[in-house]
């Protein structure tokens, strides 16, 4: 892995910024919002004394006490279901699931209740809650620690899905998610939790849900991605640039709500696109992006939209994961295929 950091293009960094990793940026967002909003609670396995297995919640227990930072029993359905009850009781709970691969016991609560409460009661009740979970591969763990199943969530009506690709967005998106009156699943790309630091404003700020970021402008092809894969897109952007191909990089930031205008606007301009994601290919979110481009920008296309994705396989154990994860080389190859079509 190289250490190319996403370049902030459409953001103004005010004075009073720290250089933070993504982990630290999420931590700052949690602490700041807990400071200003007494209804914000954090709950999950090991989130208290241990500060979370990735140290995302470090210091929160000392700062806010066990009433607001709850080390829970080891039970994912319980964590999410209790968060539903806390939200109905007037709080804004932030539930941490330790890894996306351990989300499955909580799926009944997430799909049957979290996603449905507003609709079921025609707005009488709603669930202002966040479910945070580290997702994706690249850290060489045992089985079940590398999953990237955002497509499952997107295909569940009623959940918002935010996936930051860098520390600045992580803080701003999380603050938006906490303040949102609907449930947000916040997927943290653990592969880049500590991969790089960047300037993050000390003050509270939001990155709106549903607004993509054009990280690099280009004119020949659009590379569409989110979360950890934005780095692969940026690396590909550089490699393609050396070969005279001007690639635009679009970071979707949130899959629900989706900034469809950003996708279509960019692809209409460039006429070519590659969608990059870690999750399995078939019925992955890339397929939705391709379908949207077909529906809305077909006549602007100069080549079929390419997909660079995970395989339709179980995520491999660590010895093979480098062959699974989409690489810069695969992105460059897909982009060239589109260019040469």
């Amino acid at each position: 892995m190289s250490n190319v950091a996403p370049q902030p293009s459409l953001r103004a960094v005010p004075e009073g910024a720290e250089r933070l990793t993504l982990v630290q940026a999420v931590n700052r967002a949690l602490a700041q919002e807990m400071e200003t909003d007494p209804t914000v609670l954090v709950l999950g396995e090991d989130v208290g004394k241990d500060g979370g297995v990735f140290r995302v919640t470090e210091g929160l227990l000392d700062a806010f006490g066990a009433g607001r930072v709850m080390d829970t029993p080891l039970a994912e359905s319980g964590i999410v279901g209790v968060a539903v009850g806390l939200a109905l009781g007037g709080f804004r709970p932030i539930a941490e699931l330790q890894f996306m691969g351990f989300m499955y016991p909580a799926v009944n609560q997430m799909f049957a209740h979290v996603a449905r409460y507003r609709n079921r009661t025609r707005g009488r009740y709603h669930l202002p809650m966040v479910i945070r979970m580290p997702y994706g591969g690249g850290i060489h763990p045992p089985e079940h620690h590398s999953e990237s199943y955002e497509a499952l969530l997107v295909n569940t009506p009623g959940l918002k899905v935010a996936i930051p690709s860098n520390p600045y967005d992580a803080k701003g998106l999380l603050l938006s998610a906490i303040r949102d009156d609907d449930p947000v699943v916040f997927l943290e790309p653990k592969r880049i939790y500590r991969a790089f630091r960047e300037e993050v404003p000390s003050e509270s700020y939001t990155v709106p849900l549903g607004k993509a970021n054009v990280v690099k402008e280009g004119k020949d092809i659009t590379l569409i991605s989110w979360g950890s894969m934005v780095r692969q897109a940026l690396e590909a952007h550089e490699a393609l640039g050396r070969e005279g191909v001007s690639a635009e990089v679009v970071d979707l930031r949130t899959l629900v709500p989706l900034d469809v205008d950003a996708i279509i606007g960019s692809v209409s301009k460039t006429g070519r696109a590659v969608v990059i994601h870690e999750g399995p290919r078939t019925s992955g979110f890339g397929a939705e992006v391709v379908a949207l481009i077909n529906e809305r920008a077909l006549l602007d296309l100069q080549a079929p939209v390419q997909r660079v994705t995970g395989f339709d396989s179980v995520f491999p154990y660590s010895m093979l994961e480098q062959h699974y994860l989409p690489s810069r080389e695969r992105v460059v190859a897909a982009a060239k295929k589109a260019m040469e079509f």
Partner: protein
Amino acid sequence: MPKKPIHEAITMRLEVLDKDGKVDKAFMPDLSGDQLQAMYRSMVLMRKIDEKALNMQRQGRIGTYGSIRGQEAAQAGLAAAMEPQDWTVPSFREQGIMMARGVPAHLIYAFWKGDERGSVFPEGVRCLPIAIPVASQFVHAAGLGMALKLKGDDAVAVGFGGDGSTSEGDFHEALNFAGVFKARTVFFVQNNQWAISVPFRQQTAAQSIAQRAHGYGFEGIQVDGNDILAVYVASKEALDRARRGDGPTLIEALTYRMENHTTADDATRYRPPEDLDYWRQRDPVDRMRKFLSSQKLWSDKKEQALLEECAATVEAEVAALEAMPAPDPTDIVSYMFKELPYNLREQREQLAREVGR
């Protein structure tokens, strides 16, 4: 290193009012004649509302319906013990207590007719919507009980389920969380002895549901669920305990499902017919009427007046149901989020075009 006991527990069963309407004075709650009559009236109204639902289902005026017949004492006894600020966290066979807690019966009918507006309860009614996925709502009751404790709200959350629900993981996760966090929660299991066709004995090797509470570090009690006075006594004690901050309680109301699981079920395929005769003799409504009559608190005249009153209420609720305008098809998508993203806006426009709005 001796081997020694580290935990001993006894699970109690409480009965106050027997099948013939006689009470055990040692456990008789301190309730006025008016209160006792109100509890009886509440059960009769539940039964009449329920009978009408079955009737309307047969006529095709509502959809699939799950009857509460036989479980009126469990629901009315608990309702009588709850305070106005307490929360009801129902499963799908709690129409009785939902009504008793302020949900109008026509909304319950609307729910079973297939109308989401049946879960839009009046402001101030502290009742969550019906939860269909079995046992999932217990966890919400635990979380809500934690919230009430954190806020210092003088209320208790009561979570409901049936005997089948106690086999689900969520039942155990809910009790475990509530125990650890000393939630202001009461878990109320109506053991009606059937989970569709599977009898209680095939749900668990444990002798009772109540005893499972001990595994989570708090008290459980079994009551005769057809005995409204026993239900009241156990409920009051559990609610008081939770309100004091002394943690949750599991109540098992042992009762019997007198009807099919739902109108889509045929219990003659699996239920011994003699069961119904046995439980009919233990009917919760009849035994309370016998008791009230023996105390000179009830009469044929009062009974007649009550039946007329219930009939009028049922009629008014049916009229309210049928006065509801047809649901707006665009509502399918309108409530998915507070603010609709582009796709749902487009889909709402499509629906609006299709229905000419």
